[in-house]
């Protein structure tokens, strides 16, 4: 799997796509592979504050429930409503199935996230355990 280089990543398997003063957030292809068939997505409402490192939603597959952690802090400006009725979009194309868009509180937080190459290395190490 090639991880898109215009995204930034976390060790909790979320991705961030910066876009000016905002960013889109989703979970990585590796995360969807670990979860299996995704059947339910719970997301915050527009206007909600999310905080880096804290859960802001959850994803459920047939076999597991998993929190989704905010990679960066900000205010939710948009929620991907399509995921409520078609959560399988995440399985089909994790890196385009964004969950929320936020207005960044502190753009400098982006610098602490992993590059595609670093994330790929992290996943490879995790897999070898």
């Amino acid at each position: 799997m090639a991880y898109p280089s215009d995204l930034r990543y976390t060790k909790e398997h979320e991705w961030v796509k910066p876009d000016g003063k905002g960013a889109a957030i989703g979970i990585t292809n590796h995360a969807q592979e670990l979860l299996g068939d995704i059947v339910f997505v719970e997301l915050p409402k527009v206007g909600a504050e999310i905080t880096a490192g804290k859960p802001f939603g959850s994803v459920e597959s047939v076999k597991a429930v998993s929190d989704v952690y905010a990679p960066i802090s900000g205010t939710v400006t948009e929620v991907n409503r399509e995921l409520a009725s078609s959560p399988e979009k995440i399985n089909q194309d994790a890196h385009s199935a964004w969950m929320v868009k936020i207005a960044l509180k502190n753009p400098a937080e982006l610098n602490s996230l992993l590059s595609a190459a670093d994330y790929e290395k992290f996943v490879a190490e995790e897999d070898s355990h």
Partner: protein
Amino acid sequence: MVDFNGWDMPLEYPAPGGIVAEHNAVRTRVGIFDVSHMGDIRLEGREALAAVEHISMNAASRLAIGQAQYSALLYPQGTFVDDMIVHRLGEDDYLLVINAGTREKDFDWVREHTRQFQSTVRNLSDDFTQIAIQGPRAVDLLQKLSEVKLSGVKFYWLTRGTVCGLPDVLITRTGYTAEDGFEIYVPGDEKTSAMVWEKLLQAGKEFGSAPCGLGARNTLRLEGKLPLYGHEITDTINVWEAGLDRFCKMEKPEFIGRAALEAAKAEGLKRTLVGLEMVDRGIARDGYKVLDQSGEEIGWVTSGSYAPFLKKNIALAYVPPPFRDPGSTVNVEIRGQGVKARVVPTPFYQRPKRP
């Protein structure tokens, strides 16, 4: 792979493409499961029937040779040691198929409580590789590999015959998926097991078969409301609460647990197993609390999941009897929030009658 009671087992297989695909292969075509983790206890001898009748809540005396029945081993309190399928293999020859996680406990229990009878008890759990072939096309798949006329074996009956060139294989028309299907018991050595598994996968291709892991096994049995030890049935749940009345034969003069069940029946039910369907968004999971409209805790979820064939979020739960009627509404506490659910008739899924 996951550790399941000491067995390294797949939750799902790579090829079919997930639990949902495996599940629906069984509902519409056929799935193949390695269920070798199940335990097998053989009871033989002049008083084998009396021994089985003493430890089993169902009536083994009603079994013809070649017939099987669902039953359970009970504690004197009327609660569950385990559930099982009792197979009558011969005149005084019974095979009890039990759960993986309770194998040693069950074997010790059976041996201990049948000492007074002239019968031998053997733990054959490691002798067999048990494979389940399940789904509407199971009979067609297995028939390609067997000389036995399988259409002549009725549901919950068994036979012996050649499978994959192996002589005298035990073939039972049983399963844990709420579909038609078979379970076969072949020699447990690796070479034979792998040969049979491969042949089944090959023979299944024309039917669109799928190898199925523990994930699909769980969602399939949940749709069919088939109980799972440690969830719907435990050492603190009795037969009436679990709703397994029709497998418990109180007309038998004696079996372990009978007296307590008689007393429990007179007292009335404190809780009962019901089926829930989520009304609001959310999936009830094992162990989640069930609340009434005022937020008071009234019970708990024993099993819950997205149901891949029904495409609904369903659960089984213990609640007080006033909430048992279909249409009653309760809340399930999901991550601190009460999420509305409705009591529905069970089983959630029943296989269509086929000619």
